């Protein structure tokens, strides 16, 4: 088997993650670009850690998301970088975000269960949009009359929000407290007033 120097290995892994079409997992790297180079997983992990350090002060960061490693622009640069595109980023309706949050925090969950919590029906359109974006999928059926679909979030969802796992979702504690039945009343709750200011702008795509 061919040998590769640490320097070459770092360059190769770096370039591979940059040019890959999707986040690159350790397996993917070992099976493709590093195939036949007798690089151990441990050595690969070391290289990845080094690269993460290298890029810490840069405009682009090496991050680990659910489906693997990828480079992405620093969060703080977002507002500036967004100027490069005429079109604004899609915005999501509250109905969609609430449905998505429930699926994320309470998965696997049925549509009926989502409706019970939200107090309103969930439109098929929302479920369809979330499925089409690849954020949710049916993972099974609940063994109750009607065998309703059980929904869960996907890796694509986590990748989109730059999360490596569900545990990284914010305010998961609130859900845990809720399950235990002792949520504190002084938890900061946003008032709806802010919501009302969000009038859709003409050039925005509002996704319901």
């Amino acid at each position, binding site marked *: 088997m061919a040998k590769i120097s640490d320097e070459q290995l770092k360059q190769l892994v770096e370039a591979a993650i940059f040019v890959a079409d999707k986040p690159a997992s350790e397996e993917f790297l070992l099976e493709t670009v590093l195939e036949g180079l007798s690089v151990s997983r441990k050595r690969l992990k070391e290289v990845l850690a080094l690269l993460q350090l290298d890029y810490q002060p840069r405009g682009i960061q090496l991050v680990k998301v659910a489906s693997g490693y990828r480079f992405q622009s620093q969060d703080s640069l*977002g507002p500036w970088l967004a100027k490069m595109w005429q079109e604004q980023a899609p915005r999501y309706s509250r109905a969609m*975000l609430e449905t998505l*949050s429930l699926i994320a925090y309470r998965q696997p969950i049925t549509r009926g269960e989502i409706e019970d919590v939200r107090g309103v029906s969930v439109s098929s359109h929302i479920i369809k949009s979330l499925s089409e974006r690849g954020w949710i999928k049916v993972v099974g059926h609940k063994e109750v009359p009607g065998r309703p679909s059980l929904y869960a979030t996907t890796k694509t969802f986590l990748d989109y929000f*730059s999360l490596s796992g569900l545990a990284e979702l914010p305010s998961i504690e609130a859900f845990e407290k809720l399950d235990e039945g002792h949520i504190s009343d002084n938890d900061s*709750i946003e008032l709806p007033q802010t919501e009302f200011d969000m009038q859709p702008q003409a050039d925005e795509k509002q996704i319901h």
Partner: protein
Amino acid sequence: MAERADIIAIQQPLPLAFINGEAVMEKPEDLYIPPEALEVILEAFEGPLDLLLYLIRKQKFEIVDLPVAQITRQYMEYVDLMKDIKLELAGEYLLMAAILAEIKSRMLLPKREEENEEDDPRAELIRRLREYEVVKAAALDLDSIPREERDIFLPKVQVTEDCQPQRMLPPVAMQELVLAMQAAMQRVKAFEHHHITPETLSTRERMSAILDQVKADEFTSFSAFFTADEGKAGVVVTFLAILELVKESLLELVQAEPFSDIHIKLADG
């Protein structure tokens, strides 16, 4: 329900009716909404729980204290406003109205001694409100975390032009090789069984024989060229010979209709 009837009765022409509705609004300063924004606001509620939460927070109540009488009244005011501007009022809002009315009536009943906190008719609604509040907050949190397209952008790095996709060669299992060999050997055996020894039937020879047999001025039936005693091999040789002759434009084939008998004659000229 009498309350609601009153509101409808005193309703004035749109849109002023919503703003100067002193008769229905206890705290007009809190409920003042610019008329053009009213519809947007009412549509912004994600359902009855959302509306109730809004009312509770607006009055700075604690959910646990849930002043049912007050909240119910305000809730009904909003529901009526929604009806007035002909918002498509979902059944969920009316269902909640019924729930509130029921709680209210139960609260009016004298408390029995042995009743504990869990028998509070508000308990279930309080539980749902708190649960919904958590979901609502989670949705806002989710919306605020950095995400692709809006806050995070992915680099697009080119590979140099000489970098061509690598073609992966198909895997072959030893078993596949063994079975392929077996298949080849079986075919040899099958061939040997039907072997006609020695190879006397040559296509060229048969071509000459057929040319002798056919006539230029009348058709001969296709079947006339085949003889049973030559077996399959004979049929094949004859067939090939005829095809060869047709290809060389020495024979003409005629078939009146599909599947009918084929007739053969010597080609003209």
